């Protein structure tokens, strides 16, 4: 038997005490592991959110929003400088226009209704309201008004964030044209396709040009499903607006850099553009997660500290209890190092056994605790945020926060065991210090 075997055997001298210590350590380690799982899962979610949501900067011509306002379009030359700014990963550009019955043979899938008539009046298009209509914006004119069909020329056809309707792009048939295409091709919204009996391969007329449908998409909302999307170069050519851009979206590498990129874009484009970003709303959405991350970090450190204190006090108790035995061992030739090694081995044995229970508890409780923390925190944040209105694009983020799932892989188990060993060594090393203070003559005084 060597010093290590003796240390391990000593851990089981008092079985009831050993069992109690292991259970207490197990609870401490389990809590530490659950907090580590929560911390990592929440951290990954924050990184994911920060790199995918709210990390965009929107650019519009100064004074213009969609088809409202006025001013002059931006140019590709102006935006080329933006593309070169630090932290800019990509730049989506679009040129939008509205096709009226004089520009296209397409019929809108949206009926005018009173809103359409009001908006048409406000936008200066002529129409005559139905009998009895006398609402705000009436300017008089034709009675055959139908809402126009929006056409968007873009270099990122699957990103509907560049369009007024938004939504999630889902190709239901055909294919998407290349971002750099110059062909007279289009993908059309599903409602517009149904209204005009369009299928992949069908053609329609716009700007007196025959355009071929290469794909049909569903955006999940009526407005976007009434749109036509064409290549940016095609739209610039057909609408006779070469190099013009009416909307651009700058994609930034991380939400943390959005503010600095916004400033840089404003500086680059000057008074020619209105530059906005949604970082603040995204930060608000992930604030609960950051709170959880902080709580889980402190809880993790607290649980590890508690484990270290437990093992330290246990080892102090054991050393005091075996003071006479330590004196005997020293008297028969054991060095301080040998005795310390024996006690550290005993502490490691207890801690590793506690860790096995702790890992089991961590595996079982890690995800439920993470979900509990996230659900409580996000529901509190949502309740608190209702009075201040909402930001549509981030509603989905908030609801998605609850779908956090911690993965307990080998790395977490490895970190858990490593933390346990550190706890054991730190906890027992101080106790071992007392061992070195025990003089072998103690054994004679106790006689």
């Amino acid at each position: 038997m060597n010093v290590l075997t003796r240390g391990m055997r000593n851990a089981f001298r008092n079985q009831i005490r050993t069992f109690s210590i292991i259970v207490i350590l197990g609870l401490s380690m389990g809590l530490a592991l659950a907090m580590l799982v929560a911390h990592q899962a929440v951290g990954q979610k924050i990184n994911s959110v920060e790199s995918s949501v709210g990390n965009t900067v929107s650019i519009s011509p100064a004074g213009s929003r969609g088809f409202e306002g006025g001013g002059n379009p931006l140019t590709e030359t102006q935006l080329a400088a933006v593309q070169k700014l630090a932290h800019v990963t990509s730049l989506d550009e679009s040129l939008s226009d509205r096709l009226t019955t004089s520009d296209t043979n397409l019929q809108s899938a949206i009926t005018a209704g009173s809103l359409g008539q009001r908006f048409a009046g406000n936008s200066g298009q002529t129409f005559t309201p139905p009998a009895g209509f006398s609402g705000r914006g009436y300017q008089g004119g034709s009675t055959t008004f139908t809402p126009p069909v929006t056409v968007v020329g873009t270099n990122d056809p699957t990103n509907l964030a560049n369009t007024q309707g938004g939504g999630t792009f889902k190709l239901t048939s055909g294919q998407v044209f290349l971002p750099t295409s110059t062909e007279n091709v289009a993908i059309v919204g599903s409602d517009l396709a149904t209204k005009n009996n369009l299928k992949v391969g069908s053609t329609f007329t716009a700007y007196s040009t025959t355009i071929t449908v290469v794909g049909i998409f569903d955006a999940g909302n009526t407005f976007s499903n009434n749109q036509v999307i064409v290549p940016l170069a095609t739209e610039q050519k057909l609408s006779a607006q070469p190099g013009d851009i009416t909307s651009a979206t700058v994609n930034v590498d991380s939400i943390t850099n959005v503010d600095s990129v916004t400033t840089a874009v404003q500086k680059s484009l000057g008074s020619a553009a209105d530059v906005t970003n949604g970082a603040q709303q995204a930060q608000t959405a992930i604030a609960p997660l950051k709170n959880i991350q902080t709580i889980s970090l402190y809880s993790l450190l607290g649980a590890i500290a508690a484990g270290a204190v437990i093992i330290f006090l246990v080892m102090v108790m054991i050393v005091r209890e075996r003071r006479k035995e330590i004196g005997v061992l020293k008297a028969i030739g054991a060095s301080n190092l040998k005795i310390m090694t024996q006690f550290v081995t005993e502490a490691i044995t207890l801690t590793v056994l506690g860790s096995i229970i702790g890992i089991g508890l961590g595996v079982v409780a890690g995800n439920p605790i993470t979900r509990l923390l996230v659900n409580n925190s996000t529901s509190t944040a949502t309740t608190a945020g209702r009075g201040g209105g909402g930001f549509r694009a981030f509603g989905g983020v908030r609801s998605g926060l609850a779908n956090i799932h911690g993965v307990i892989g080998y790395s977490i188990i490895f970190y858990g065991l490593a933390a346990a060993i550190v706890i054991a060594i730190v906890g027992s090393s101080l106790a071992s210090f007392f061992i070195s203070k025990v003089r072998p003559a103690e054994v004679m005084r106790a006689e």
Partner: protein
Amino acid sequence: MLQVTELKKVFKSGDTKVLAVDDISFSVPDGQFASIIGRSGSGKSTLLSLLGALDKPTSGHIMVGDKDITKLRDHALISYRGSKIGFIFQSYNLVPNLTALENVMLPMEFAKVPKKKRQERAKKLLDQVGLKDDKQKRKPGRLSGGEQQRVAIARALANKPQLILADEPTGNLDSQTGKMIFDLLQDLSRTEHTTIITVTHDVSIAGKTDVVFKLQDGKLIKDK
């Protein structure tokens, strides 16, 4: 030869100083069986601690052979205790979760004796002190007081020490078992040519040793 010269040990108790060992000088030739007698508090156990290098004297010298153990550093003292001295205690002080055999092997492990050799020697020593085979694998809790003291004697002999120090080795035993243990120690001092110094209250036992030192208030007042 064990030679003690002008040995003093002072303990501080609050503001007062207690002279536990007061200027003691004596010598014990190799292979002799000596006893130290005296009342409680006379300094017997303190003297034994100093002789066994378990404690450091305030002044004076202890020569074991040609080596002054009061001048040894801590690391050398550990080695000295492990190889040159064997201890026997009144309450045996065996490690409770080790078997009798493992207890005897322990000092040899500290002296880095190979496992097989220490196993063989431990068994031989236990045979020598009369502990039967089946009891050699028992833990101390399942041995009688006399058997535990035999194991303690075997452990003290493990590294073939020059000097064995015994603190009341028969103090916890009945008179018959005590006599057996005393006879065993006396026999060992002759057969192994080992110097044995024992502290005892029992004047009849002390009378059978080669040398008797009587202590009173830390002073050596009589020797035979």
